Every structure is written in C-alpha cells, then in structure tokens.
C-alpha cells in the first residue's frame, strides 16, 4: 500500500467537494479497493470514505420504483429489499460472505463493474437508473466494458432506482473457491418486455442477451431459450472454465433463471 490521506465527509456535498481534487478517490466498503491498494495497483493521494454519510444508506419504495442509496451495504439490501423486490434481495444476499456483505456497497459494486460481479446484472436486468449528484444514467448506458462505467472522475453513485418487475430471478453458477459468479444471469419480466442480463461470462463485462429477451418476450418459458446459443468467441476463458463452457452455461443458467422467476 502507498501512503494516503483519508477524509470522512458527513454529507454528499462534502464528499463531492473532497473528490474535486483529482488525486482523491471514493471509498465505499473497501472490499475491492482495499485489496487493490494492498497490491499497489492504485495510488490515490486521498481516500474519501462514504461510509459515514447517513443519507446514502437506505432502501425504500416510492411508487413502483425501489430506491437504494449508493452507500447501502449488500446485507442491508438483502434484508430490506426482500419485501419489495425479492429477486434483488436474493442477489445481494448471495454476494461473497457475511463480512463482504456487511461492508461492500451497491455503489462500489456498480462503480467497479467487475466482469464477474452480481449487481451489474441486477441493474442492467432491471433497467435500473444510476443516479449521481449530477445526473441520471440508464443502466444501458452505464456499463461500458471491463471495469469501465459512464461515471466521470469524482462522480459518486448516490442512488440506484430499480423499477420492480412482475417476475424476476438471479441465477448464479459459482466458481466454488471464491464463490464469485462463473456465469450468472438476471432475468426480469416487465409489462413491456423481458430483460436478460449476463455477468461472469463475457470479456467485455455484463451484457444483455437480446435473442433470449426477444424469445422470452413472446413466450416467457424456459423452453424458448433451449434452441438459443451464444458464441464462445468473446467469452472469458480462464483457469476456472473455458470460453465454450461459459457460453454453454449462459443458456442453461438463463433457463434456470426463467424457471425460478416462474416459480
């Protein structure tokens, strides 16, 4: 770890001000950033901890939209979203282990956009809107490839708005050692259509599987996915699984997700 200063703002306003300095970086739960610092893969002059900002921590329904504060931990979402959006609560409840869930935050997970992370699939699959101090970004525009997002330097995720679908399910095939997703799929059926978001599989991060969405919009049953395949090309091939295996799993896990959504 390189040396750094730490600031503990009490409000979003203070945090934004603190982050205006180009050397500063936001610290959420630190579940990704701290290991990165320890490996000296990042050298921020100042860390701006968001964990002391009460106004970033909430889960509440407004109309038919579930709003989650950018600093809300996975554990809080797992607990408090269950009544409103069970599929999302279930996603949050299966991230990592209790230690990770009690520290890691939704804002940190989305901002990080790890290709094997869970929330990007939840947000993209739900057609969520990512809110920052400055603007609102549709999930379709937010994720821009491996560890890349639409966020500008110093921009903080203050809220994520999830339209609640009629039916949804997050199905996660884990890599057994780390319990990260080897392939995971978030399926959501809305009145206006179906969204299928896949994480863990693609070399360019979370993506929507358009073919499956179209088929499922016409007939929301697992069977319609059976004939569909994704190309192995562009899939991640690594020590935990080949590109071909991941491509195969996308189909199977999508079907399972549809089954789960129907159950």
């Amino acid at each position, binding site marked *: 770890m390189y040396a750094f200063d730490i600031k503990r703002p009490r409000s979003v306003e203070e945090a934004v001000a603190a982050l205006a300095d180009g050397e500063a970086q936001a610290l959420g739960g630190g579940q990704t950033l701290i290991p990165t610092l320890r490996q000296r893969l990042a050298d921020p002059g100042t860390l701006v901890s968001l964990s002391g900002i009460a106004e970033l921590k909430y889960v509440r329904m407004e109309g038919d939209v579930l709003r989650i504060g950018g600093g809300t931990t996975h554990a809080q979402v797992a607990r408090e979203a269950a009544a409103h959006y069970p599929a999302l609560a279930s996603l949050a409840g299966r991230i990592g282990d209790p230690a990770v869930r009690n520290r890691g935050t939704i804002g940190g997970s989305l901002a990080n956009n790890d290709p094997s992370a869970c929330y990007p699939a939840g947000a993209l699959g739900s057609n969520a809107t990512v809110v920052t101090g400055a603007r609102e970004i549709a999930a379709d525009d937010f994720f821009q490839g491996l560890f890349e997002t639409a966020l500008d330097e110093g921009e903080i995720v203050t809220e994520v708005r999830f339209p609640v679908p009629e039916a949804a399910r997050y199905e996660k095939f884990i890599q057994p*050692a780390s319990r990260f997703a080897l392939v995971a799929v978030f399926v959501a059926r809305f009145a206006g259509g179906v969204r299928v978001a896949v994480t863990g599989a693609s070399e360019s991060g979370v993506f929507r599987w358009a073919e499956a969405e179209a088929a499922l919009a016409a007939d929301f049953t697992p069977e319609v996915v059976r004939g569909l395949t994704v190309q192995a090309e562009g899939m991640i091939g690594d*020590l935990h*699984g080949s590109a071909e295996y991941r491509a195969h799993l996308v189909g199977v896990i999508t079907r399972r997700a549809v089954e789960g959504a129907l159950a």
Partner: protein
Amino acid sequence: MSVGRPIPHDAAVLHVTGTARYVDDIPAPHDTLHLCFGLSDTACGEIVAMDLAAVRSAPGVVAVLAAEDLPNSADTSPSAHDEPLLATGRVHHMGQPLFLAIANSHLAARKAVRRASVEIREEPAILSIDDALAADSRFEEGPRFYRKGDANRAIAAAPHRLEGRIEIGGQEHFYLEGQAALALPQEGGDMVVHTSSQHPTEIQHKVADALGLPMAAVRVEVRRMGGGFGGKESQANALAVACAVAARVTGRPCRMRYDRDDDMVITGKRHDFRIDYRAGYDDDGRIRGIEFRQFARCGWSQDLSLPVADRAMLHADNAYLLDDVTIESHRLKTNTQSATAFRGFGGPQGMVGIERVMDEIAHALGCDPVKVRRANYYADAAPGDAAPAPAPLDDGRDAPADTHADLTSRGTTETRGQPAPPPSGAQTTPYHMAVEDFVLGEMTERLVESADYRGRREQVRAWNAGNEILKRGLALTPVKFGISFTLTHLNQAGALVHVYQDGSVHLNHGGTEMGQGLFRKVSQVAAHRFGVPLERIRITATDTGKVPNTSATAASSGSDLNGMAVKAACDTIRDRIARLIAERHQARAADVRFGGDRVHVGGESYGWEEAVRLAYENRVSLSATGFYKTPKLEWDRIAGRGRPFFYFAQGVAATEVVIDTLTGENRILRTDILHDCGASLNPAVDMGQIEGGFVQGAGWLTTEELVWTDKGRLATHAPSTYKIPACSDRPRVSNVSLWDGRNREDTIYRSKAVGEPPLMLAISVLMALSDACAACGPHYPALDAPATPERVLAAVRRAREGAR
C-alpha cells in the same frame, strides 16, 4: 484397559480452544529475526544479474543472503543433493527461492524481498508431460518395469481388448498450519531447531550438513503439526535450514513461516499422472493380460519421486490378481514445483488406473462393475490361516561411507540382494509378493448387504430412466494398500520411557503428531503395558535428542512402528518392577500382573505409586529405551521383486452421486464405508482418519484443480482459486464402520495402519460420477480427474456422442 477404547485425541481440547502450541506460537527471545525468501518469477533460465542492494537497505533488514553468501553449500533435498537452498546460477521453477532476507519482523522481511532487481535470461520451460517426453527429460535413465507373465501375449489371446488413457491431477496439501521453523543458536555453535516437520531426523541431518556440524550438535524438536499429509516430509527442510544458517550468520534466533501464497508456489504437491492402459479380458470381465504405462510429473528436483512412482506401480493391481502384467513407469522432470509425498504416496494414482479399467470393462460388457471387480479379486485368506514364520533379517550389511547421505530419507535408493521367491502356488502381486491376508471378498459381501447395493442399483436405474437432467451414479471400489516403507531399513523405530518417583510416566518416541492421533494411540499402549490410567502418561514432543535416527512419520507406519517401540520400552521397565516384586514374595516374575493401577502378585497387590517407589528405593532403573524393526521385509526395487510390505490394509466404499447433465455440477449423496483397521487401537481416532481421508480424497478427485499458466506460473495459489472440500461438501449420508478383524501379522495389538489407506476409498466417488455420466448415452465417458463440472459435462457429451 486403555487399548481399543474410543478415547478423544489428547490435544482435542487444546485444538478447539486455540491453546495448542504450534511452531509459530512458541515464544521466542526478544532479538529473534524473521526470514523471507525472494522467489524466481521465471520457470526456467539463467540468472544474469541479481542486485540486492535495495533489499539490504530496506527498513528492518539485518542481512541478505544469496547462494554465494552461505557458509556451506546448503542443500535441502531429501537425498539427491539437487536442491540448493538458494538458486545457484539457474532457476528451475517459478517460485524457486533465490535469496533470503533476514529482518526484524516478518512483514519487514516480506516487504524487503520485493525490492530486489533480478534479471533472468528466460529459456523455454518444460512444463507438461508431453513437453518432458519430447525432451526426454526424466529422472533415472529410463522407464522402470515390473513384469509378471507375458502381458502382450495374454492380451493378444484374450476374447476382448480395450485401451485408453486417464489423466489424474495433482493436489495441494493445504495443511492448515503452513510451513514454519524456529532456530535457536546455542553455545559452541550448536543449534536447536523447532520445526513443523514429519521428519525431525532429516531436518537434523540437513541442518547439520548446512552448518558443517555433526548431527550430535543439532537438536530438533517437533511438538505437533497443524496437518502434514506428506507435505512436511521433505518440504520442511528449506525453512529449517534457512533459519539455522541465518542464526549462524547473525548469531540471533531466527524464525520463518511461509505466507500461504508463497507456500503454494514454493512447495511440492501430489504428482499428477497420466496412465495409459491396454487390457485383454474375457466374457466374465476377468483380466487376462494388462499393460500400464504410468507417467508422473515430478517437477524440477528428484525429491521423493522415485519411491512415489514405485508405489504407484506397487498399487497398479489394487485388489486384483493379474497373471500377465507389465507396469511401465516414467518419472518426468519438469520446470514446476518438485512434486513430493502426499497421503498415499503414489498409491492412489496407481489405484485409479486399474479402477478405471474395471469400470471400462464393466461398461463394455454391460454388466455390473461389482461383478467384474469380484471376478478379478485376489482370493480371500482362509480363516485362521497362520502367517508363515518371519524370515531372518540380514543385519550385517555395511553402512555406506558417504556422510552427506541422508540414510533416513525415503528418497534414498538402495539395492539389495536377492529376495526369496514367494511360496509356490501362492497368489502373487505383479511384484511377486504372496498375498496372504486378503479379506476384501468377505468385506465386499458385507458392504454390498449393509449398503443395499443391489437395491440401490435398481433405484438408480429407475431414477435415471425417469429423469433427463439429473442422473445418478453408484460405484463400489476396494482398497488394498501395502503397509511399510518400501525402503526396507526405514522400518525401524525407537522410544524412550521414564517412570518418575511419583509414578508419572514420561513418554517419548520417534513419531510426530500431525493431528492424526498417533500420540493418543501410543499413550494408550503405554498405559496398557503398565496397567495404569491414561492420566499417568505424559506425552512429550518428538525430540532428536531423546530418540535418534528416526524415520519420517509417513507411509501410515506411525502407530505400527512407534507403538511397538514404546511397548518394548515399557515392558523393559515393567519386567524390572515385576522381578523386584516377585523376589519380595518368592513368586515368579511372570506371575506378577499389572492392571487397575496396581501391581498384583499372588493374593496381594501394591498401588502403582507404591510399586514405583519401592523400585526406586531398591535402585531399579526406571528408564528404558525401546526399539522395533518390522520383520519379513525383503525388496529389490529395480527388479520389482520381493516383499516390500508387511501386510495390506484394506477397505471398501460404495458411493452414490448425482450430476446435473446440463452443467456438470455434482454432489455426493451417500457413502458407505467398511474399513479394516485390524483390531483398532482407538476406534474414534480411526473413524476420524477414515472420514477425513475419504473427504480429502474426494477433494482430490473432484474440486481440487491445480492450474499452471503456459509460462509455468501456478495460477491456483490461494483458497480463492483452489477449492478444497469444506464441511458442506461431505456426503449427506455417511455410514462408516470398522471391519471386525485382527491383523494376522503380529502388529501392535493386532491393529492395522490407517493414515493413508482411507484416502483411496474416495476413488468410489470418481467411479460413481463416471457411472452417472455413462447413464447419459451408449459410449464410455472416460472421465478424467479432477472431475470438475466442466469435465463431467464433457464426459456426458462423450457418453452421448462418443469420443470426439
């Protein structure tokens, strides 16, 4: 009666309360220094430049040593002298220690080594079995052969033939306590070393050699290890030698422990194997002739690879009588970690080979695999069949003059005279040893009944007929594992027992405790000999100053050897006390009995303490050593002939699994085990070894996958990428029972060794997975290990579509 009782592990309470002391918990003097190796980031090449100035100037660093700075050329190999402590000119694997930082704290040492600037001219590395074969990179001059009959002719003449290949992955030991050592310099240059090692005498020898001292100037102590599994036989040498050398150079105590990632990257693992087979068989599935070609990836140094590969050959028959057989073994040298001992020591790999063949024959004939296995079993020993009289041992051999040779290492190779041929008409192994104690026929019959194998075979069939996606599989596999070190002279042990004036007993022997319960078993033997409660027996750390020239606690031999040595020592003292008491009562010493914490003679008795006090006052020595050597062993490893084993430990397991044919995910549903511990010294400890061994074996064959990059970097060097079984991975239903036999050989209370054999019960998991895959289509699935979901899925495809 303390022998045969299910008494908990002596340190169980200490373990679960966190008060058991491991090497790194030992309080050390305030000026103790901490060590860390700088490692090679290249698998193969020449060291062009190594600039350690920045390491030397790092905060907290006291000294930095490279190979040329060592007082003597320090070697850490178990026997072949091919493992310099620090690289000399060339590097042979990624993770090889290049230099040693000595600092005020563990963290300072770790930070310092990162500052090195090392330039290595990279050369193409030999990583895979194919690479090694192409380059003819191997240990020994060529392959080894064991032969019986004429395999080639028998295969040609057989009604059916098959041939195939199985790839079997390696395994990381993943002892919970990592490697650790602490060296305390003494006056006059002597050294005391605390180490987490299964082989204190080897540590003593290597440290003495590295310091240029006689062995008598080095004392090594091991209280316990937090798991060893073979990974602390030769692999503990480097840390102990490094600490001792650093202590010599600095004059201060030195300690070292590997961080987990370093541990995984530096130390050797179970050998991965490829086994090619060709078999001829008849309509009943009986093998007429068979050939195995075993390829072992040994890594960069010889380590214990020769005896490991030997043991793979020695278990290529497992439980099956093979009349015409050839086993060919290639020991390949690669630029990877030096593969080493791991529970089973090559036996498991050899056994997987023939179990695969049994499975494939049953598949080809469309008959039940248990039937095929039974058709090939050795014949059971007739009940009450007396063991032949022990052969005389030739003790008059000349000792080799080479003082550098570590005679107590399993890596030492010896050639011996002509072993006597087996009795004519005896059923023999492929290495011409008579099999006289086979009980698997009856054990299998018992397990088939108790596990309801036939009924469940029908249930599995019905399930598979009615389910497209989830398929079940069932398999029953036997284990016949040879007990003894194959290097005959290692089959000896010593003990030291003191009885103090107050009646308390200090017990010491050459075996080490690594959680397996050896100390508990041996203390039961001591309590039993003296007829006193266990509480009187004080178990003490293994110490080369108390019992010298010990063998590694390995080859499952710990209780067999040390139990006997302790018995001998106790009996010496007991007989002295008996003589004294007998004299006082004009009785015969043989009529004095020890039991119930008393010493009985005629109608009278003395309390134990009183008897001991009397002995002391009458100037009777209350201290004795004990010694034991295993009888009957004769082995010529080059010819592949003789009797390398005293007896066979046996077991049988039936496992049911379920697979998801869409993803290859799988679970163990149920396991039934019947295992032979002879007359168990401690059924609770033995059950623990059986369950633990099974789960560890299941991990090896299913989830534990080692992956190296194409540059030779071990990509799976932490638990975040390498999956060992957890509690939740055990079978949901597990029925373990002990076979109620006695060892027909004269072992300690007729018990049998239990350390390694149960690991191989897990081969039933691999075969059950194969059975489930086979339920998906007409072709043989040829499932490799570890059977990860991806491999299972590929096997399902092969079953459906045939080999690609």
